[in-house]
């Protein structure tokens, strides 16, 4: 367990350092440092022991991770932008967790992740503006709408395989963006403003005064996003560590064999696809309120690809890997603003390198252990 704790501590320290530093040379230095340390740890076999301790004492370390997140938020309590970044990371992780159920477990391809994220966001934009539905209720509605619209694709998704299946969702991604662009009711390419979250008359968009210290208004979004992430994480974990997780894996690895052992292919594909879109939708709904603005350009095919590459980068099927990868994909380009013109380029090159030299991702998925630390 100790290696896990140390890793966690170092990671959160490093992350806060990276978030706090402004000077470009320092940032570049930090990034280089991270690469070196990571490689070193890998070479020394430390990473392995870290992942082992995570596998065995996940609950404890999970709790610690939450504490660490709070500590970080406390440290940046009045820094709007850093908090916004953290919130973004949290919500993108939720979305990729959903995507992970689809790609990682059941092998159902979904290249429209950003589209379902967007559906969630647009849901909150419309509902908050035109109805009196409590914003907290809007979140699950966003998920449900995403799942429902996704179910329009079920028939083709179930019938097609491989690249053909890929086309279905790619076509959907393009269709949705084109639709949002030309459709005036939803703001067209100009997009829509999204009213912020309000719970019990108290608006999330107001800063919070605690005696002398003033907290950024993103703080409340942070708390909510973290709660959402924890819930999603537990859900996905339990899913993986159950017969359902096993079914999905069997489905992904050999559909025919699976069906010869009584597995209902359609049922589990539908479950995975719908559940995944539901999670993505919820994350999107909340993210819409955080950003306060939705536009078709946020939810293009390219954005879906970013979500997918987070999945591969982190190690497909491994929730912890997702968290790490999301941090890399969201925070690093953000911190390298001064080379902003080149960030997409560098980022793409990085993913190519990972795919070439470490195709199983940064933190490969370990064998399923139904109960962490369980021994026969």
């Amino acid at each position, binding site marked *: 367990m100790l290696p896990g704790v140390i890793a966690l*501590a170092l990671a*959160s*320290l490093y992350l*806060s*350092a990276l978030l*706090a*530093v*402004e*000077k470009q040379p*320092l940032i570049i230095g930090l990034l280089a440092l991270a690469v070196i340390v990571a490689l070193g740890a890998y070479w020394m076999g430390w990473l392995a022991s870290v992942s082992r301790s995570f596998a065995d004492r996940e609950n404890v370390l999970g709790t*610690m991770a939450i*504490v*660490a997140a709070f*500590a*970080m938020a*406390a*440290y940046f309590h009045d*820094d*709007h*932008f850093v908090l*916004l970044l953290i919130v973004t990371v949290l919500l993108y992780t939720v979305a990729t967790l959903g995507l992970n159920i689809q790609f990682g477990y059941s092998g159902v391809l979904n290249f429209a992740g950003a589209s379902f994220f967007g559906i969630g966001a647009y849901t909150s934009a419309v509902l908050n503006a035109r109805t009196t539905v409590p914003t907290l209720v809007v979140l699950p509605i966003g998920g449900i709408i995403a799942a429902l619209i996704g179910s329009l694709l079920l028939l083709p998704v179930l019938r097609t395989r491989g690249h053909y299946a890929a086309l279905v969702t790619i076509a959907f991604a393009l269709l949705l963006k*084109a639709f949002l*662009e*030309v459709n*005036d009711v939803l703001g*067209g*390419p*100009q*997009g829509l*403003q999204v009213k912020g979250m309000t719970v019990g008359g108290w608006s999330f*968009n107001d800063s919070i005064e605690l005696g002398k210290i003033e907290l950024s208004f993103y703080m409340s979004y942070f708390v909510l996003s973290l709660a959402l992430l924890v819930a999603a994480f537990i859900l996905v974990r339990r899913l993986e560590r159950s017969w359902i997780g096993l079914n999905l894996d069997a489905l992904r690895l050999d559909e025919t064999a699976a069906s010869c052992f009584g597995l209902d292919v359609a049922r589990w594909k539908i479950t995975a696809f719908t559940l995944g879109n539901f999670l993505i939708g919820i994350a999107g709904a909340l993210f819409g309120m955080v*950003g*306060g*603005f*939705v*536009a078709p*350009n*946020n939810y293009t095919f390219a954005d879906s690809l970013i979500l997918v590459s987070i999945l591969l980068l982190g190690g497909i099927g491994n929730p912890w890997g997702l968290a790490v990868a999301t941090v890399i994909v969201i925070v690093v380009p*953000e911190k390298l*603003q001064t080379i*902003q*013109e080149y960030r997409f380029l560098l980022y793409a090159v990085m993913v190519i390198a990972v795919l070439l030299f470490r195709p199983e991702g940064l933190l490969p998925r370990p064998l399923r252990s139904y109960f962490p630390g369980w021994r026969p």
Partner: protein
Amino acid sequence: MTNALRAAAAILAAVWLVAAVPAEAKDKVKVGFIGPLTGGVSANGLGGRNSADLAVRLRNADAKAKYEYELVVLDDECKPNVAVQVATKMAAEKDIIAAATHYCSSTAIATVDVYHKFGLPVVVWGAVLPDITYRNKYPEVHRVNGTMINQNETNAELLTKLGYRTFAVIHDTTDYGKGHNEYFSAALAQRGGKIVGTFGVGADQQDFTAELTQIKALNPEVIYFGGLTPIGVRIRAQMDKLGIKAVFDGTSGIVSDAYIQGLGPLAEGTLAFREGAPVEKLPGGKFFMEKYTAQKYDNPPEAYGAFAFAAMDLILDSIEKVGPDRRKVIDDLANVKNRDSIIGKITFDDHGQNTVSVITKYVVQDGKWVVWEDSEYASGRRKLPRQK
């Protein structure tokens, strides 16, 4: 964990102090610039960035200046979503005192709420949509360039005077294009022009043969285009492909060297309108161009460079006067009256809108934007398509 974090905090603070020890006696003040540095209209964005940068450099070179200024530049890619992200980043960074923001109306209108929410004073340097200043009454938001209303008035005025009666409208479906469509249609109606068809198109659409084929059937004398350079170039080129002989009548959105480079000879005879006098005719135009060329930037200032310069200069003046404090700067900008600038006197109305009356008419002649009055089209030596 928390202790560990505190430790880290301490270390970071130390690092920060070391890094932040000023080289000169003057203390550093950060000011921002946002514009489209990538994408189809990047030429205008880079021109604006350079001009703003020029203002900062001149100020830093000035021994009398109280502060050492650092320009933070962000790219809105002319996309509303990106704009909101970068605007949030800029507004959220406390030590950025004020900023000159946005060439694209679609991005400016999307971000005003952000600036208001975070209380960051901004001066818009290029976007022309009236709503940016007039939809709300945000003390944070100002604009040195004029709105699209007057240019569309002038536009309709000129074309009807030239005897054109039937118009087809193509506009991009962002608030920018919609706005132009709205104001031009109104202006045209008053002057008895007839709109035979209106087409909304995507801001990054590639193929317009579908729309243009329909327009060809409608056979208008003029195609009015409310949009920006990239699709302006495409539409003009594809008009030619389909053998459409009509005047191509644009807005301030296509007044850019990129438009002419993009079309070559095809650009000849394109009309466009822009608020404010042309740079060479501006009071400080000569001074601006000299300084600009002296800096050897690798892009021209483009149509709105002078405005970006003026906007940034205005901001720097305020900071010099009231010090690096967002609130004070907002208050100071609130009463800008007859302030001299390279674009002439600047006066903000109660919405922070500079009242620019003069509109310049342009026509492309021999690969240059020529002021209409000086052009051979005005003198009658050349004729626009179907001109009586």
